[in-house]
């Protein structure tokens, strides 16, 4: 089967300072697969997600990223979204003055337009978004606010999942979506993700906790240290990390230098 995402020996530095963050990372993800990435703070997990989503401020030193067989790094941010790539932000930002509903509808219809699909009318959109909000227990009041303004950490994370469900991407990066969620919210979010998963959708789940992986069971668990994947295993690897931390892997990161 053709890979959905194929990252080959990717090296990425910061634009502002001469510092390489991703130092030769390879990863292939097939449709329907769930991959988890764990790793110490600062190992480059969010940088990897940002690069995949197309954020600027990075220099690709070498390597390639292919999505559905074409060069992802060439695509604009909004084109990547329309291709079906979605990143749930580790720290979702607030956008004062931009209404949540207006934002969601614009996002959805922009993507549809890019893909040559018809735009959703106001009534259908409302029905769709209300249904999703209800499942995620996001209040009407919350939906009426400007994007994420005044939302708690957990509410913002739920909002990310709402956006995911609405936009129906094929490749989802969850960057520590579990951090800051209470137990109930964690279940809601996991349920949301599980309902959403299918044989054609893939996930890259970045997390520090094995807990989330009880709900969203990964096919592969990767340990990332200092800009590289130093170990790949199955879900048992996550359990191992939970017990012993990263000390076994830090050495692996150095050896590869």
């Amino acid at each position, binding site marked *: 089967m053709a890979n959905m995402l194929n990252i080959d020996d990717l090296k990425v530095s910061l634009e502002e300072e001469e510092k390489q963050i991703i130092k030769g990372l390879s990863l292939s993800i097939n449709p329907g697969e769930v991959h988890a990435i764990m790793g110490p703070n600062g190992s480059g997990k969010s940088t990897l997600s940002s690069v995949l*989503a*197309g*954020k*600027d401020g990075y220099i690709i030193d070498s390597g390639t990223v292919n999505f559905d067989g074409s060069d992802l790094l060439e695509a*604009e*941010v*909004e084109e*990547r*979204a*329309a291709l079906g790539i*979605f*990143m749930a*932000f580790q720290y*979702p*930002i607030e*956008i*004062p*003055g*931009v209404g949540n509903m*207006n*934002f969601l509808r*614009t*996002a*959805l219809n*922009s*993507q549809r*337009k*890019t893909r040559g699909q018809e735009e959703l009318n106001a009534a259908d959109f409302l029905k769709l978004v209300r249904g999703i909000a209800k499942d995620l227990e996001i209040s009407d009041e919350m939906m009426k606010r*400007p*994007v994420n303004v005044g939302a708690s950490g957990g509410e913002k994370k739920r909002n990310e999942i709402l*956006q995911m469900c609405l*936009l129906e991407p094929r490749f989802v990066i969850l960057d520590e979506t579990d951090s800051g969620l209470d137990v109930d919210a964690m279940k809601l979010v996991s349920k949301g993700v599980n309902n959403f998963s299918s044989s054609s959708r893939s996930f890259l789940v970045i997390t520090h906790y094995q807990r989330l992986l009880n709900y969203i069971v990964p096919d592969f668990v990767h340990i990332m240290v200092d800009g590289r994947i130093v170990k790949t295993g199955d879900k048992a690897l996550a359990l191992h990390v939970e017990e012993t931390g990263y000390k076994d892997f830090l050495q692996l990161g150095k050896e590869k230098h």
Partner: protein
Amino acid sequence: MSHVNTSDWYNSLRQELECNSLSIEKVSRRSEYWRKSNLDIVSDLVQEISETDLINLNGTHLYEPELTIVGDIMELASGKSYKISSIMDEIADEGSFTKNYFGKLEEKSQKLVPRPLARDNSLSPKVGYALSLPESSKKPLVIHNKTKTSVNNCFQRNLIIVNKGVEATIIETGNNLSVFNSVTEIYLDENAKLNYLDLTGENNIFPKISHKFCDMAEKSTFNHFGLRLNTKSTRNEIELHLNGPGINTSIANVSLINKKHHFSDENVLINHNAYECKSRQVFKSVLENDCTSIVRGKIYVAPEAQKTDGYQSSRSLLLNENSRFLCKPELEIYADDVICSHGSTSSSLDKESLFYMLSRGVHKEKAKEMLITAFISEALDEIEDEGIKSALSNYIDIWTSNFFHE
């Protein structure tokens, strides 16, 4: 003045004012208040004159004008509840009620700031209205200015009197195809309320200098909203005298300018002369293509104006490096029990917000538009009338959607 008929009272007032008049050339070199203004583009040639203006949008009327002023001719739609007359008739009339009002506020306005263009206006008005509002009206009075290319310099002089307890809304729109200089003296009686919207659009290809001087009595309200859409050169001067307790006032302005070297220049002076008055000033400027926006907002608080609540916020969104936002907030306070705040910022479009929106598939231009709309919303929110606010928001949204496609 020879061809204009004038009364004795006007002639003697004129004589008095003429003795103390200043030339703009002298003043602009000396006064901080004028220095950065760029009004000497009078000689610029008009490149193109299109018939569209702010009250029209894609062929549909945003507002139906009731009073149209074409050059020095006034055309009034019929059957109105207000009393309106030509200012030129009034200053020719010995017994005119305007005798007690005309020029009084202009003269007062010269105390703290030299305003030579307002003085010029008092000396040779060409057209204008005297409006008296004896009863409230829900429907706005729409005034449409159409300055003609054939007129070199149009001095428009207006007088507005809002009686006790009366509420009214005035919307001023139009274009100006020659230099336009207006002075509007406004008197608000107790509990009177005037919402004034000054909408200036792309067709203002010649300098437009507007003065509004307003005397306010106890518990009256004056809300002024200014819109400058790619105006070549506007200078707006507002001076308010809050003379009784419990007065409320809001001055808001939105300038969206992206044509090279265009500018808007907003000057506000709010004199708090009585206790428990509230004033708000909200300025938002979005600038691209080496444009300039100037904001000078001053709050003066007299010793007796205790419990004054004065708020001022001036913010700009600079979409290119060479656009400039020149902002000079001033507070002059002689009372001790007051709350006055002012803040000013200049920033570019927030990169993080932009990335967030793009990452959800929103197209770049659209995302910028939405951020601009968000940026100016605080100023639009100063408009009380929801109908007018949403009509204007829509208008601005459509206008903004072309902002990046030029």
